[in-house]
């Protein structure tokens, strides 16, 4: 009975987690892939590990620590590169290492054994709490409202910032808000896929979608769908094979991407051949 209930709640959690993860990762992922911010997002992810370490050490919620670290480092990098005070990639590289070093030192300094360390690095659906799921659900709602309300401004700002600055005085504000939301999305998804793998949860689905569609809203929708499909498939495989969930989800997504890529190349070649055939008739 107890066993059944536990399994049931585990599946519900997994399902809800997959829904929220695919929505948040689809929206945030399309933004970072289109704006070519993947490296910055990697920096944010690893910098937030510093917050996890300090959270552990100080006895506060590690996700809250990660959120503070993630948002501050994201805004810091945007500011440094905007004001041309430092090269963006160098700033990211330093934050990346600083976050990991801080995390490791503070986890080492925390008395006793840290059973959750591996789950933060590689993700585990088993450690996802109800609070995590609620936070992720709220995040999904916030992102949906933000991106649908300011769709045009965000679209044009990330496509051609210099031009966007001619029609809005709030370009920097929107950039900073978007970046902070991306950082928060990444941090909240760390529970699902872990620091090391979470980035691919955001980058692979939009890359699959962009193989087949060319408008921003469709890329978002298809990212959410492929993200959900991949997450569910990975989740199921990991459950039955008894292998780590995060890693299985990412592996499944990469396999889907590779298959779609091959299909897209095949479709394109076929279309070209048809064109040639028609033109030679």
């Amino acid at each position, binding site marked *: 009975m107890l066993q059944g209930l536990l399994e049931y709640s585990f599946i519900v959690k997994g399902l809800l987690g997959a829904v929220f993860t695919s929505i948040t990762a689809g929206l945030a992922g*399309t933004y970072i892939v*289109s704006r*070519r911010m993947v490296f910055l997002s990697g920096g944010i992810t690893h910098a937030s590990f510093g917050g996890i370490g300090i959270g552990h050490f100080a006895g506060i919620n590690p996700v809250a620590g990660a959120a503070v670290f993630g948002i501050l480092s994201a805004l810091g990098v945007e500011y440094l590169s905007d004001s041309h005070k430092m090269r963006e990639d160098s700033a990211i590289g330093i934050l990346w290492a600083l976050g990991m070093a801080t995390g490791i030192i503070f986890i080492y300094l925390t008395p006793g054994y840290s059973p959750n360390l591996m789950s933060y690095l590689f993700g585990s659906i088993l450690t996802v709490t109800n609070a995590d799921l609620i936070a992720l659900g709220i995040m999904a709602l916030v992102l949906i409202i933000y991106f649908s*309300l*300011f769709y*045009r*401004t965000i*679209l*044009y700002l*990330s*496509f*051609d910032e*210099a*031009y*966007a*600055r*001619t*029609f*809005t005085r*709030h370009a920097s504000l*929107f950039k900073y808000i978007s970046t902070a939301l991306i950082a928060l999305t990444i941090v909240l998804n760390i529970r699902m896929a872990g620091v090391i793998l979470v980035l691919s949860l955001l980058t692979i689905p939009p890359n699959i979608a*962009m193989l087949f*569609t*060319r*408008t*921003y809203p*469709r*890329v978002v929708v298809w990212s959410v769908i492929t993200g959900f499909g991949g997450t569910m498939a990975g989740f199921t495989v990991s459950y039955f094979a008894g292998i780590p969930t995060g890693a299985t989800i990412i592996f499944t997504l990469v396999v889907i991407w590779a298959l779609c890529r091959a299909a897209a190349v095949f479709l394109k070649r076929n279309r070209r051949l048809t064109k040639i055939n028609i033109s030679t008739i």
Partner: protein
Amino acid sequence: MSYILEIESLSAGYGGPPVIENVNLKVDENDFIGVIGPNGGGKTTLIKVILGLLKPGSGRIIFHGGSTDRTEIGYLPQMQEGDAGYPVTVKDVVLSGLMIHKNAAGRMTRNDRKRATEVIEELGLSGLDGYSLSELSGGQRQRVFLGRAVIGSPRLLLLDEPVNFVDSEFEMGFYEKLAEFNKHMAILMVSHDVGTISSHVKSFACINRTLHYHPSGKITNDQLRSYGCPIQLVTHGEVPHTVLQKH
């Protein structure tokens, strides 16, 4: 009399010595002014100040009717390699030219979309509405950006080196389009290449920190030399041609 754009005693820079100094220029309806000057002469700085992207150190800019409102400017930035892979369609790019009339949460109406389709057709890009920029040639892409600049029917069209990196066939068509637009709007076109634009503009402004205006559309070799512009002489005879200094 009210000009489309009046620039008075304008100086601007980036913290160091001013890049442009004491610039005066009046742009009237149907003017087509070519702004020429060497690299670093202040061409792009002038455009940035007109667009409000850079605050002037001193002087002022007045638009039509004495306003400081920039909603009646259409802008075609320097062509960049840019991100052609970005998931945005031709129609969306053209529509972005209307954002200046909307707030941050602005939506596009049915009329806006209709207007975008008209502009796309007018620029010879019929049927390409739903294409992404990566599927277009460089010249086609530049026409899309011209569409973005003119969709709001601005009174002043600002062009920054519009024909860089495009083939000469495209260039001819492009200038023909500009001549048509010039019937409804003034054009200020920045270029480092006096030879190419000489047969299309109605007048010249030569900029190299300071600005000198030549209403006739002709510049003499001596004038060019004294302003430190590229040494080229433009003549408008029966066959327009450019005379280069001995080199």
